[in-house]
């Protein structure tokens, strides 16, 4: 019975997030448009000068998809922080509902939004002349790796929001996420960077996902053998931040 309750609680909390979307379609739309804007900017305005073998758009799109997954962190943080500021979390916590349901609702909604975002970006990518040559299974695998990265970022975001609990920290993270996102191979190959920077970039978990995804899409910049790293990095992050976030939520009242 309690497993059924847990499922029902998680579904109720997911419905709550979906109801928020229905209330604010414009905000949802802006969330989808922003990464598309970035893609167009880098594709047409900045991209021309990048030293990459093959078409830059083929290099850029997988990188941009990866970056979008990482930037999802801010959205999650903002939403959790905003929730905590309001009294409604007190009501949830004083009710006999499943402990983690509030967080699961957030996670499900964010994953749905990210999946929708990915599809939009893929569509725009195709319109820009991007093409994937890896076949449908590899294509699905690539999307899976991207969503796995997003899932890890999600729980980092929830944890950071619970630790900080203040909008000021969200701003700090919103700024910091840029250098972290750019210290990757999303826009440029590490070989084109100074030696030490290239090393940092190669060790960025985001780069593992980008490289593996490029490989699966059959795009330039991909290298075989990175899929394992692209699975293990997010799993490692999850192993740390998922329990931390849940624990933090339980301990809100101490």
């Amino acid at each position: 019975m309690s497993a059924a309750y847990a499922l029902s609680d998680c579904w109720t909390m997911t419905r709550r997030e979906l109801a928020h979307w229905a209330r604010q379609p414009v905000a949802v739309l802006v969330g989808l448009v922003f990464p598309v804007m970035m893609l167009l900017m880098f594709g047409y305005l900045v991209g021309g000068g990048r030293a990459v073998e093959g078409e830059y758009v083929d290099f850029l799109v997988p990188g941009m998809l990866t970056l979008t997954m990482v930037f999802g962190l801010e959205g999650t943080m903002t939403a959790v922080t905003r929730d905590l500021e309001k009294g409604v979390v007190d009501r949830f916590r004083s009710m006999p509902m499943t402990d983690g349901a509030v967080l699961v609702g957030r996670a499900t909604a964010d994953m749905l939004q990210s999946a929708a975002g990915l599809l939009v970006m893929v569509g725009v990518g195709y319109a820009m002349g991007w093409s994937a040559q890896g076949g449908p299974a590899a294509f699905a695998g690539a999307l899976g790796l991207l969503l796995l990265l997003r899932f890890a970022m999600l729980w980092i975001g929830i944890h950071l929001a619970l630790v900080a609990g203040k909008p000021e920290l969200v701003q700090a993270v919103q700024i910091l996420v840029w250098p972290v996102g750019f210290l990757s191979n999303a826009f440029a190959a590490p070989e084109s960077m100074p030696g030490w920077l290239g090393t940092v970039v190669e060790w960025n978990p985001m780069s593992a996902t980008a490289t593996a995804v490029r490989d699966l899409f059959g795009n330039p910049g991909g290298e075989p053998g990175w899929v394992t790293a692209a699975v293990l990095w997010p799993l490692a992050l999850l192993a740390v931040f998922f329990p931390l976030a849940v624990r933090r939520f339980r301990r809100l009242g101490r």
Partner: protein
Amino acid sequence: MSVGGDAILMEGVRKRYGDKPALDGLDLAVRRGTVHGLLGPNGAGKTTTVRVLATLLRHDEGLVRVAGHDVRKEAARVRRRIGLLGQHAALDEELGGRQNLEMFGRLFHLGARGAGQRADALLERFGLTDTGRKPVKRYSGGMRRRLDLAASLITDPEVLFLDEPTTGLDPRGRGEVWEAVRSLVDGGTTVLLTTQYLEEADRLADRISVVDGGRVVAEGTPGELKSRAGRDRIDVVVRDAARLDEAVRALPFRPAETDVDRDRRLISAPVRDRMATLAEVVRALEAAGIEAEDVALRRPTLDEAFLRLTDRTEVAA
């Protein structure tokens, strides 16, 4: 102390925030089916008490039982039996009234249909039926409070916590909340009500605990507290400021109970027997040859009673 008859029991409860004690050995017992007022100034520990009772905050020391269950060890059982109306609306501001109630109903596991029916019943009971899809953030203060109260009554709780339920409401909104609380109590709910207004506690509560500095400093029925803290008073205004101290010595008041206001040349003291004291005062002034500008008997204000109860402990401590 009879555990069986108490809906709320707190014994020697302590809670610190860093170095600052918020609850400093608080004791509280509330019998089932009664309204208990928790009265005290800002920062006295009222909200901390409610948050500990509602399982939102873990206390450091002491025993806390709600509806017969330990809040730390049996939090889930406690949560099934309580309703909470906090100081700030605990509602999803983006959603409409019905959406909110339905969501909370689902979380109490009433099922989709049950939650919907319960939401409609509560909306009707609190006069919110025609709010439609309007988001809560566009509600008036009174409407929001009513919806918040409705949300805390989803499952007809055994114990209801109301943390300053009328703060920030206009007199009409206040009256509406009082009305709702009274009808709940008729239904057998135990209510713990925190308030800064003695009038509110006086109107609603069967018993009152006056809280200050994280401890209960006085407890009793509203009548008992008023007679203890707020006896009738006599005010004497002396014409010549220079003779104020002389007048204080001449008057038959206990020094510890006497207030002297030099700016207004006013001496004020509690009275047991109104007419006898009045006569005594007039005689004493005459005998000392001190001219009074005014001598008046008056009832204490409720605020005075409250201030005296909380003041006295500071002197004692």
